[in-house]
């Protein structure tokens, strides 16, 4: 039976998934862990140094002519794997590495990458985001939307039961969705449900109707496919109350067995799964925060799947026979300019900074080719990618000319001055690592802008403090920032001046031409939020992309590839091109027995 080992879950702040690629709070446990690691590094590094010959080049230094990783399989079918009798596929435990503890095991309290990736296997959503990032029927076999986009009718599967044998039906869906606006429960989705959802009605035993208060074009994707769309057992939730997070019960292919904080989450097969009996006996999610440790465990065979592979690891992993799946994901990274404070209020300064960074070199040398220079904030092949949007080129000479023309003259100490004012930007940084390291990128930006005569001060804050300062916009003028999205057309930064995480302080601008730009952006966002046609939304976003380019509201940098390491014995694993809820159809995944 499940042990009561769950502690301190479900207490962290809610955050927008699209904005926050990773929740990584520096708590005391983590600090102690790191201090141990510090001691360990000091002790171990001499040994490692001694073991490597001086002439032996580190593998990461040779850039490949092009990424040689396996593209994500287009079809989950076992076409490439040799025929293995279905009965021979049963058994085994799949071990997945996860960077952090899930904040809760109750899906309605989960809105971050680290948690959803760890625990969604115990649940099913009403609607699923599939490997093409399209919406797909799941517990709702079918759904209809009225033409005005205000009323959704869901037709539910009839063959589903929860792990505690509670039947899944319209009443269960009503219970789950109404739980989202209950003040007592106070889930992560309460604000959205209160704002957008008018009522949830049971039409018949397997039909539910949801009426919206105001148009929300991405309602099914945001609120029926992610945390709030995952169904929990009403009887268990009512019986256990807050303790539900310690005895989670869903309809998913795996049932909860035990969770040990900072160690693992163990789930066992649900024999009665509606999608067919899963092949795996059990699924173990191991909590391994250190990226290098994940790689060592993957190579050693103690972990089957890691989502934390970096470009530097690819060759070594491939040499040990591990498949590295290279998933193009809708990621974006850019330089945020503070438009409301400091020298970055001036267009010339923003343009000069944008021209000073060598994006090609970053892709080639830091990402070792596993990425691309950003054009308008979208990777190639995604709806928001447009060839006619220009890329900010690397041209430090032009950058210097722009600053010269703006009256910033280089003094003997190399720093530009105008009317006695030194040109200085404050760079905000943090230690976050997702695809690329914020610290590394900020230092690259720092050196680039110093070379064109701008003085800098760099300050590194812990992730939570970083976000507070990032939002406040009091100190910083320039910072590297990155985002990823869980939908095709959602790529991009929160340029909306009224967004909670407005990335460039556009909403706080009070003077100059940017006031009018802010108004234009607001108007486009207003239209975009009312527009049901995805193509028209892409067109509207293009207007913003052009405004960004014209006024250098931010400066797009690079897109990195999402690299997933999978051991060869794992078969039919389908990786979705999203950071959250990354694996698809885990009940069809199996392990080749050696």
């Amino acid at each position, binding site marked *: 039976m499940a042990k009561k080992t769950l502690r301190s879950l479900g207490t962290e702040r809610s955050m927008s998934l699209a904005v926050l690629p990773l929740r990584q709070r520096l708590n005391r446990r983590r600090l102690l862990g790191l201090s141990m690691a*510090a001691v360990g590094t000091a002790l171990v590094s001499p040994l490692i*140094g001694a073991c*490597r010959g001086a002439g032996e080049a580190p593998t990461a230094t040779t850039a490949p002519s092009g990424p040689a990783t396996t593209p994500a399989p287009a079809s989950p079918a076992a076409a490439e794997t040799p025929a293995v009798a279905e009965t021979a596929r049963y058994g085994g435990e799949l071990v997945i590495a996860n960077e952090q503890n899930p904040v809760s095991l109750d899906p309605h309290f989960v809105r971050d990458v680290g948690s959803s990736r760890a625990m969604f296997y115990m649940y099913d959503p009403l609607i699923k985001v599939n490997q093409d990032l399209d919406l797909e029927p799941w517990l709702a076999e079918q759904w209809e939307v009225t033409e005005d986009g205000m009323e959704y009718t869901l037709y539910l599967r009839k063959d589903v039961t929860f792990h505690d044998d509670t039947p899944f039906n319209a009443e269960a869906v009503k219970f789950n969705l109404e739980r989202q606006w209950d003040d007592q429960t106070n889930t992560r989705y309460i604000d959205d449900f209160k704002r957008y959802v008018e009522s949830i009605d049971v039409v018949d035993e397997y039909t539910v109707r949801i009426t919206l208060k105001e148009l929300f074009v991405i309602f099914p994707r945001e609120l029926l496919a992610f945390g709030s769309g995952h169904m929990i057992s009403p009887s268990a939730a009512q019986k256990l109350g807050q303790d539900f997070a310690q005895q989670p019960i869903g309809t998913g292919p795996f049932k909860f067995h035990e969770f040990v904080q900072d160690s693992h989450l163990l789930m066992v097969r649900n024999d009665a799964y509606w999608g067919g009996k899963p092949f795996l006996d059990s699924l173990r999610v191991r909590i391994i925060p250190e990226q290098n440790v994940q790689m060592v465990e993957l190579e050693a065979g103690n972990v089957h799947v890691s989502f934390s592979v970096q470009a530097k690891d690819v060759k070594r992993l491939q040499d040990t026979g591990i498949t590295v799946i290279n998933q193009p994901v809708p990621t974006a990274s850019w330089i945020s300019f503070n438009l409301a404070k400091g020298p970055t209020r001036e267009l010339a300064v923003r343009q000069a900074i944008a021209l000073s960074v060598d994006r090609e070199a970053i892709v080639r040398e830091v990402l070792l080719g596993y990425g691309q220079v950003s054009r308008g904030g979208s990777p190639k092949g995604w709806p928001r990618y447009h060839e006619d949007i220009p890329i900010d080129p690397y041209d430090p000479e032009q950058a210097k000319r722009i600053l010269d023309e703006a009256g910033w003259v280089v003094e003997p100490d190399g720093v530009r001055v105008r009317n006695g004012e030194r040109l200085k930007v404050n760079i905000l*940084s943090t230690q976050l690592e997702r695809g690329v390291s914020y610290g590394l990128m900020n230092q690259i930006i720092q050196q680039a802008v110093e070379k064109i005569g701008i003085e800098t001060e760099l*300050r590194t804050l812990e992730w939570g403090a970083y976000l507070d300062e990032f939002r406040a916009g009091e100190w910083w003028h320039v910072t590297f920032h990155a985002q990823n999205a869980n939908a095709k057309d959602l790529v991009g930064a929160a340029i909306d001046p009224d967004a909670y995480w407005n990335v460039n302080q556009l909403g706080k601008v009070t003077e100059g031409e940017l006031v009018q730009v802010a108004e234009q952006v607001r108007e486009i966002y207003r239209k975009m939020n009312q527009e049901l046609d995805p193509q028209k939304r892409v067109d509207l976003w293009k207007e913003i992309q052009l405004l960004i380019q014209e006024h250098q509201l931010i400066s797009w940098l690079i897109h990195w590839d999402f690299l997933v390491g999978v051991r060869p014995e794992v078969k039919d694993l389908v990786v979705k091109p999203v950071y959250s809820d990354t694996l698809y159809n885990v009940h069809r995944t199996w392990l080749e027995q050696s």
Partner: protein
Amino acid sequence: MATVGIAFLFVVALIAILAPLVAQHDPNEQDLLARLKPPTAQHWFGTDELGRDVFARTVYGARYSLFIGIAGSMGGLLVGVSIGLLSGFFGGWVDHLTMRLIDIMLSFPGVLMAILIVSVLGPGLINIIVALTIWFTPTIARIMRGTVLVLKQQDFVEAARSCGAGNLRLMLRHLLPNALSPIIVYGTLSVATAILVAAGLSFLGLGVQPPTPEWGAMIGASRQYIREAPNSTFFPGLAIFLTVLSLNFIGDALRDALDPRLNVWTASS
């Protein structure tokens, strides 16, 4: 061993002072085309994750690490000795108040206390030194107070007092010089501790700000690449190891020389 320690520290100090002459490269100059290279004739210690010369960074790092270590423990000595002296000399409510405060400070685990201070003040060179000062103060104050309590009972203090010496003169001319030997030993060892703690805080990202080449910060930033380019963590690690070891050798030798309870007599053959 102490001689070796002193010699090594002398060299490190010399390198720190003459850093621009010793290192041919700018410690902060990035070269993305030469990231994570192993040691070569051009880059003696190889390069780090931004293509910076690890030798130059280690050499310049000596400046920061030694400065933080010495400034931190000196700060602790200055404040701790003053508090201990006053508290031991005057006794009474002054003693009670300061010692209870010090009890409270001692009840925090040292590293946590330092992390707490830096978290409140924000990361940075000066704040690390402040944190180290606060860390060392209670212990030094305790040692000083204990020594002063013993000394002030002794005849020479009574004699000086009867000759009309004031409180200040008694404390500074008679008590302080006689109470210094345990403090000197502790002070030397605390430099070693300070370097280690500062390296630890910088490793955690709570110390000096990038791109400052402090040893701990270098290890912290490069540890991700420990398997690809162990040189970028190994050399700053070695620098910390040897410096701290030298300081400990010197501290041990000083203790042997200054602590009467540790006197060892060996039969002459």
